């Protein structure tokens, strides 16, 4: 059970943090040999992290200078990473500015974490500062910025990246993130404004946009896109989608489309639909295919079918 934090504990933690930050600034020559200090150093690290946690109980004005001091001192990255999270939870403009500073100038690990923290902080000014960082950053930085936008729920920023992407990889990463964020309207705008890409189908599925997928699934002008959309419908799932998949399966003359509809049902877990199709079919090959699909699903329904097949009922 988590112990309640008392005022005295907070004061002790604040004192410890202030002391540890000062200690970290002590020159190496003033310290004892490393071999003697090693276990204490670990313990000191644990205490610093505990102190940072306790700092959350302090008023933001008191906490901010101490966290800043930890970041500017010669602490390990682990301690600084923890300090960044605490900083993200301090509701002061200076804290967000400090995060942006680390995001721009910190080393790789701290930089990525500071970007994540800006997403958590959700401060509009700091989020706007990520745009430059994205443009000038490497792939890791760009991924971190996309993740920060996702955390902040800033679909506009991700849409802008997708709409202005310089290459397919950049476009795909942004579109995928829009899918994760459930940004259906933005994805539809991209569908209209850019060259259609398979990644959009995946993103429609991730965002749960059954309407757009259904439209694509019923459009036979591009068989490959149609098949992908039918399968993606299975990811969305639901009664209405299941009914659509069964209907597509029944009404098509194309083997590819029928196969995609079966895959969709498999992904969606629509065993009942497969069972109906099995019972309605007179084709042995088709029955076998449906039975195999039900077996893959490990549906209890398959036991009834096996029983029927062995009995030669239908």
């Amino acid at each position: 059970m988590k112990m309640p934090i008392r005022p005295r504990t907070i004061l002790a933690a604040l004192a410890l943090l202030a002391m540890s930050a000062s200690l970290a600034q002590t020159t190496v020559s003033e310290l004892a040999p490393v071999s003697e200090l090693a276990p204490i150093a670990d313990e000191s690290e644990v205490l610093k992290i505990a102190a940072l946690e306790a700092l959350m109980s302090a008023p933001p004005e008191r906490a901010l200078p101490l966290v800043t001091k930890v970041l500017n001192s010669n602490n390990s990255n682990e301690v600084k990473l923890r300090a960044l999270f605490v900083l993200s939870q301090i509701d002061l403009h200076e804290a967000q500015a400090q995060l942006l500073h680390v995001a721009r100038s910190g080393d790789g690990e701290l930089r990525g974490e500071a970007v994540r923290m800006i997403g958590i902080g959700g401060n509009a000014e700091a989020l706007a500062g990520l745009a430059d960082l994205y443009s000038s950053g490497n792939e890791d930085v760009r991924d971190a910025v996309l993740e920060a936008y996702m955390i902040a729920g800033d679909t506009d920023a991700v849409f802008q990246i997708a709409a202005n992407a310089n290459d397919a990889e950049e476009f795909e990463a942004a579109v995928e993130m829009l899918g994760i964020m459930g940004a259906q309207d933005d994805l539809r705008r991209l569908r209209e404004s850019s060259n259609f890409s398979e990644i959009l189908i995946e993103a429609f599925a991730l965002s749960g946009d059954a309407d757009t997928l259904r439209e694509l699934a019923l459009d036979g002008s591009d068989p490959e896109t149609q098949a992908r959309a039918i399968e993606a419908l299975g990811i969305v799932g639901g009664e209405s989608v299941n009914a659509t998949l069964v209907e597509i399966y029944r009404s098509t003359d194309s083997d590819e489309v029928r196969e995609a509809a079966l895959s969709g049902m498999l992904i969606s877990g629509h065993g009942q639909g497969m069972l109906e199709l099995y019972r309605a079919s007179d084709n042995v090959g088709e029955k076998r295919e449906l039975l195999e699909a039900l077996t893959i699903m490990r549906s209890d329904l398959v036991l009834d079918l096996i029983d029927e097949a062995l009995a030669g009922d239908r």
Partner: protein
Amino acid sequence: MNEDTLILYYYNDGLSDRERRQVETAINTDTAVSAQYEALCRQLNDLSETDAQAVPSHTLQRWHDTIDRAAQQTHIRQQQPPGPFHIFSFAWGAAITAALAIGIGIGVYIAGGDTNTPMIELANVGSSAGNVVPASFTRGVRVHLQDTQQDLADLSLDADADRILLILKIIDQNRLFERAAEQNNSQSLARVLRAFEPILLRLAADDVTPEDAEALRAQLAFELSVMLTKLSRDTSNETQST
């Protein structure tokens, strides 16, 4: 008046006749209590309309299949070199959790789920008026964070299948609370909960090294603790200011 007392009064349960009369008097004479009770009634009425149902067997089967496919997918990925964070693994995780989270939208529990996990009904609570974060929601989040902390502490970093299942369960719960946070005027909390998800997915990856897994777990443990401390502080400040 204490919200728990009003809940007991609403359900006509757990209060003596004298206590019921006291509550009744307070509702009839104190406008603040009357307003509080009316708001509570609205929330509870909404809940009863979308009461939790048993999960249909085919839905349960679908979840199981989704989890199986996730396990197969992670097995296929074993040959790929590990990276710090791959956006597509997150996308896959999102697809899985999207499938798992279907239950959230229709207000059901995952059958056989942990009965200690709090209140699916949080997701069904309608948008709260104004900018007030309901105390019941804050309490629910604290329980969720504590449960997550405990689950992560108990997590075996060796057993892959068990680890993935447990983490998917945590993600599922986390998404529920993230949505509830959005509905309860707590965007800052929603962002923090959203930020946990990529870390949890990295922890669920089968190619994570024991050292990295331990580091991720430590990071989450710290962040959960900080949030619990912050929520305690905020609650304490509110109590003192009232």
